[in-house]
């Protein structure tokens, strides 16, 4: 290859990006085969269970979205997948909060991990919004009750004009597309940051 068409010589942005990614995300950090000894604790499993339950929620939600509200309310299979989606969400929130407790009391933002903590907080807020629009999308008396009560809160907060909790189409669109899209994007960023920095050392093993 001549120097004239050498991307390196021309300052190629793809080469620069590739070098940056390889420097920040070497394959051995993305998919490590070994972990530090202190990872051998159940507290480090809490985030993994949260992620596993999210996978269940996404799969069961995709099945429900495909067949529609009549199916998930009437047929035994639909009710089963609706229940998987609902209880998967309960497990997701329980273990997300346990993961939050573990990271809070273990000061998981230490040693350059502030952005990991911040993306976790964003994920928590996004999850609440996604679950809320999910409760509004149930298409039953429960969702009507929640919607009628929540509209006053939305109006009180001044966002009722463009976030109408009584508009099923808007809430359903937010629940199945925009909010989960944002959620999955931030989950990917959160996991990448965990891989880039490694898991935080316990306070008891931190050199003083």
């Amino acid at each position, binding site marked *: 290859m001549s120097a004239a068409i050498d991307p390196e010589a021309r300052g190629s942005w793809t080469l620069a990006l590739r070098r940056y990614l390889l420097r920040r995300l070497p394959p051995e*950090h993305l998919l490590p085969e*070994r972990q*530090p*000894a*202190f990872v*051998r*604790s*159940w*507290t480090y*499993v*809490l985030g993994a269970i949260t992620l596993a339950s999210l996978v269940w929620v996404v799969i069961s939600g995709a099945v429900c979205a495909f067949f529609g509200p009549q199916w998930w309310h009437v047929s035994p299979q639909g009710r089963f997948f609706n229940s998987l989606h609902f209880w998967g969400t309960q497990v997701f929130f*329980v273990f997300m*909060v*346990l993961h939050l*407790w*573990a990271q809070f009391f273990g000061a998981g933002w230490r*040693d*350059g991990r502030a952005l990991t903590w911040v993306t976790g907080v964003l994920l928590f807020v996004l999850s609440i919004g996604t679950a809320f629009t999910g409760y509004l999308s149930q298409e039953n008396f429960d969702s009507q009750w929640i919607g009628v009560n929540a509209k006053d809160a939305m109006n009180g907060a001044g966002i009722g004009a463009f976030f109408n909790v009584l508009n099923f189409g808007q809430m359903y669109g937010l629940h199945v597309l925009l909010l989960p899209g944002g959620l999955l994007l931030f989950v990917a960023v959160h996991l990448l940051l965990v891989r*880039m*920095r*490694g898991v935080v*050392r316990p306070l008891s093993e931190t050199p003083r």
Partner: protein
Amino acid sequence: MDNPATYLHWGFILISVPNAALILGMIVLFVLALLAPFPGHSGDRSEEHRER
């Protein structure tokens, strides 16, 4: 399931029994996660933790 939940009331604290049970269960799970032994080998403590 269709009946209203029973509520516990101490001073300014008002919480339904299902919510209180869930929070208690989460606290128990958290303590177990801290104290329960992890299965498998005891681990190689000499392994270095990567930090960049």
